[in-house]
């Protein structure tokens, strides 16, 4: 049994990363994510890992990509402007198919925005921030404990699917100190990248015909013996550049389907008091905590409200939201931005449900009362 501790979201991301096997962190100071590098600068050397504060955000993310190539589980974290700067490197991890965990402690924007204040305005950036067709996995924890468990899941998915995974927290979760009982480390499921079982001369980093849709990738122990090439150019199974139409097309599609085709394993969501609901709230991340209170208070007032909460926000829970659209009459989409996942909800529900919104981009959390007032208005 682990004993309860008082920790904040940034510390929990850091400790979970270590528990997940992360041994390389590269970062650059930025509010409100700075406690992550502060914590890891102390902890990484203790566990024999690498911590480097780089000269900028670009270098940090590139270093994390380089460490992943070299067999290490790696992470970088930032906020707002810093995440914008990391986008090109995140695309490189997509193309090279390297595991990478990127923490975005969301703050107000665009630009410098509100450095110390909360937002959920980077959802679409997480999905489409880097250029080119690509798929991304992103998780958005609601609570402190979930910040810990979702960080571990983020590393597991990054390793399993050889892909970048975002952890989307925010300024509230980052700095919220609370009592958390961490899971016993022995109970955690930790997934490591599959190791090549073939001799080094037969190994190719993208040989899907031989190894399946997510080929093995040498870890730090095997890195020395397996020599291979990687590039940001479109590549063939050997890792060398190609412009062959069929090879490029197959590779581009596989980089997406290796994620969408395993959606059952990647998706995560919660139905809260939905069974008999007249009205569904769509909320995620810390804003779901406000929506949860609103649902509870509504029920006390005789309003049968429920909540659908995606935890894996990307890929979007298409099927579940489409079902909600068919089976319920009214929905309120609430997010701490001016409407981003709203577009996805509208697309998935295809006009089958009446959608209202509680949106706010003011640097402060949405209060349960705002959602409650909207419920009363629409019913």
């Amino acid at each position: 049994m682990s004993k309860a501790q008082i920790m904040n979201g940034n510390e929990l991301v850091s400790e979970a990363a270590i528990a997940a096997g992360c041994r390389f962190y590269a970062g650059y100071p930025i509010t409100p994510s700075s406690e992550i590098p502060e914590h890891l600068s102390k902890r990484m050397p203790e566990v024999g890992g690498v911590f480097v504060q780089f000269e900028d955000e670009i270098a940090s993310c590139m270093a994390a990509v380089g460490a992943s190539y070299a067999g290490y589980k790696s992470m970088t974290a930032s906020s707002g402007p810093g995440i914008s700067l990391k986008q090109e490197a995140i695309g490189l991890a997509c193309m090279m198919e390297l595991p990478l965990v990127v923490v975005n402690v969301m703050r107000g924007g665009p630009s410098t925005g509100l450095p110390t204040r909360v937002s959920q305005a980077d959802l679409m950036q997480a999905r489409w921030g880097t250029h080119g067709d690509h798929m991304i996995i992103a998780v958005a924890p609601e609570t402190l404990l979930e910040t810990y468990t979702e960080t571990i899941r983020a590393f597991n998915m990054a390793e399993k699917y050889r892909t970048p995974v975002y952890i989307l927290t925010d300024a509230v979760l980052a700095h919220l100190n609370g009592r958390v009982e961490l899971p016993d480390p022995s109970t955690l499921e930790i997934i490591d990248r599959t190791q090549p079982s073939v001799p080094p001369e037969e190994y190719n980093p993208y040989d899907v015909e031989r190894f399946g849709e997510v080929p093995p990738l040498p870890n730090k122990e095997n890195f020395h013996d397996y020599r291979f090439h990687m590039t940001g150019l479109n590549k063939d199974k050997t890792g060398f550049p190609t412009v062959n139409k069929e090879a490029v097309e197959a590779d581009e599609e596989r980089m997406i389907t290796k994620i969408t085709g395993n959606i059952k394993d990647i998706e995560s969501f919660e139905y809260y008091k939905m069974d008999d609901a007249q009205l569904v709230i769509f909320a995620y991340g810390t804003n779901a905590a406000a929506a949860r209170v609103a649902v509870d208070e509504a029920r006390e007032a005789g309003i049968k409200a429920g909540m659908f909460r995606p935890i894996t926000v990307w890929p979007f829970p298409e099927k579940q939201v489409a079902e909600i659209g068919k089976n319920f009459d009214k929905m309120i989409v609430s997010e701490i931005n001016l409407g981003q996942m709203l577009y996805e909800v509208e697309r998935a529900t295809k006009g089958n449900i009446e959608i209202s919104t509680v949106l706010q981009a003011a640097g402060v959390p949405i209060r349960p009362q705002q959602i409650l007032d909207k419920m009363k208005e629409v019913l």
Partner: protein
Amino acid sequence: MATDYSKYLRMEKLPLYWCPGCGNGTILKAMITAIDELGWQNDDIMMVSGIGCSSRATGYVDFHTIHTLHGRAVPVATAIKMCHPDMHVIVFSGDGDSTAIGGNHFIHACRRNIDLTVIIVDNWIYGMTGGQYSPLTPTGTKASTMPRGNIDPNFDIAELAKGAGATFVARSSVADPMILKNYIKKGLSHKGMSVIDALSNCHIQWGRRNKYGDPVKLVDLIKERTVTKAKAAKMSEEELKGKYVTGILYEDTAKKEYTQAYKELVEKAQNE
């Protein structure tokens, strides 16, 4: 004994895609010969590149290789060296890649004195994208984005590296391939950040715009523009204008290397 290049090259990837007469091949050969003389094993060598003509070199050598983003080879190399301090980590980069878009990473790696060997193929131009001017395009010469002649002053890569904290700095050129090989060999053996400014000929993108479209003529020009450190010491500032001083320009074995400093930090943390 002659070097068996097939031990170090991915022979199936040949011929090189570079233009006939390009200096990249000369510099790559110098590097491979230096490695051969050191007796290093392919498994122990990591070569990192960014984007540009010279950066395609990682595709040809049978080491651990990664062809990264424009300007970003150095942070990737830094990370790999931190993860595997026993490996020999080499960055092969162009002048634009390393001193323009990658300039910040370059100076900070120098400052840390991490044990990388950065070989800069300094051909005065962005070749791959079509001859745009770089921070090393000689002032007054033409480029596709300086059709009336370059108004930008240049970096002195050696002074930049030295000032930023690198502990081995040398300059030679494709006109002196044996000397270049010797400097690369010394740089590879040096424990700390070593920078080799390898002056090279891009007769296609720089040369054709500046009446040096013939590679031999351009290599001769490079020869004419370079002066050894010993000779330079006897020359006036006026005489040195437009010249490139060659030689081992700076060497410091006392400054602590970065992976060593980190190793000591880990020991300290674990003994607290």
